[in-house]
């Protein structure tokens, strides 16, 4: 109601000034239509892609008759850093952009500045005999965003910056069998290719 009221007030002010001035002023500017809520910032992602990214991988071999419950010292191979790039001026803060990216993909994303684990990790899972690429990873979301801000009493949507953003979702651990034939692009395919 408040925003609607603002628009209504803005429209009445513009309409009122036009009516009062029109008989005597032929050069008055035409009345601009109200198209948005004055001051409101609208931010959207035009594209977002999800890429399963490994951050840790290590090869483990479990001999016949044996088993492994904790794969220790799974080595870091990559880092994802959540970040936002601004290619033009904006009133937005980085985490406001990340929040919009989270909205777009429907999953919780790490705050700007967050990094994936920087040390080796342990993966707890019961594995029987076989060869494995034990790994840790998460989905990395990359996207392009743009923003506008409503100005001029709701009659103009002015550019409010654009850029790109990267973040990542819930981290996870896993193990891929070195004898498996995995579909490309999957965590398992990447882990096998790197670790086996």
């Amino acid at each position, binding site marked *: *109601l*408040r*925003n609607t009221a603002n628009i209504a007030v803005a429209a009445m002010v513009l309409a009122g000034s036009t009516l009062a001035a029109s008989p005597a002023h032929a050069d008055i500017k035409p009345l601009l239509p109200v198209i948005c809520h004055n001051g409101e910032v609208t*931010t959207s992602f035009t594209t*977002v892609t*999800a890429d399963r990214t490994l*951050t840790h991988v290590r090869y483990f071999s479990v001999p016949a008759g044996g088993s492994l419950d904790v794969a220790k010292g799974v080595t870091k191979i990559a880092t994802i850093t*959540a970040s936002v790039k601004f290619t033009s001026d904006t009133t937005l803060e980085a*985490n*406001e952009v*990340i*929040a*919009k990216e*989270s*909205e777009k*993909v*429907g*999953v*919780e*994303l*790490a*705050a*700007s*500045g*967050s*990094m*994936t*684990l*920087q040390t080796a*990790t342990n993966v707890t*899972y019961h594995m029987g005999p076989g060869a494995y690429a034990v790994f*840790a*990873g*998460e989905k990395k979301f990359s996207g392009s965003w743009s923003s506008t801000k409503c100005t001029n009493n709701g009659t103009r949507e002015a550019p409010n910056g654009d850029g790109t953003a990267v*973040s990542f*979702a*819930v*981290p*996870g*651990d*896993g*193990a*891929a*069998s070195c*004898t*498996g*034939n*995995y*579909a490309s692009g*999957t*965590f*398992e395919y990447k882990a096998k290719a790197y670790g086996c």
Partner: protein
Amino acid sequence: MGKPRLLSAFVIASCLVMAACTSHPADSTVSPQKTATGSSSASSSGEASGTAPKICSTKLPVTKAGMLEVSDVWHQSGSVFFGYQAVALDSRYCAHPAGEELLSPSCGQHFPWILGSATNVTAIMADAGVTKISDGTIRGHDVVPAGTVIDPQEIREKVLYLDRQAQNSIFARFAKTCAKPFNLAGVSGYRTKIRSLDTGKDIDAFLVVGGHGLIWMEFDETGWTEAKYPAILKKAVQKAQV
């Protein structure tokens, strides 16, 4: 002022687990797991007072308790993947949208179909009785003949624990608008289709409405059949005990 109105602003359907949305001035209870640096800006009235911080959303130690595990779904999977997170909500310390009242769902948004800023969504969920949210992702596959290309399947699970009857919650009410009722093997709730960011295709999603909790499940990747759902839903209910 004071009259109910629809929320407007940004939309974050599920910004409740990672610190991007809510926050932790003192992160002492956070299990760092895979995130070296966590969070973030303050949510609402999360500033410390005295010795106990007043925090709307607090990360809990990572646990798979109450959640589906790979072996629950794929009994002899040759590969596995699993990740879990959980937060506790305390409505006393959430930023309550003054004069706001949620009247209707936004079915175009992700579950729980709430339109509002991240802070508002958190507060709304806390107001709706949510005291804890657990998230889990598992991946695995059925046994296949040697040489067959394996395309693992994925389940994303979100369990909302409530301090009141789930059937009367806004989530169940919204589901009546945004999804269709189902009853499979004695498990009932609502189901709908959502777009997978992985495959670019529509996938099945279910909302199980329990006594004092709800379970939202997304079945991603290919190869799912109707015959597989009942046992998995039943197992999820059994484990979550909602």
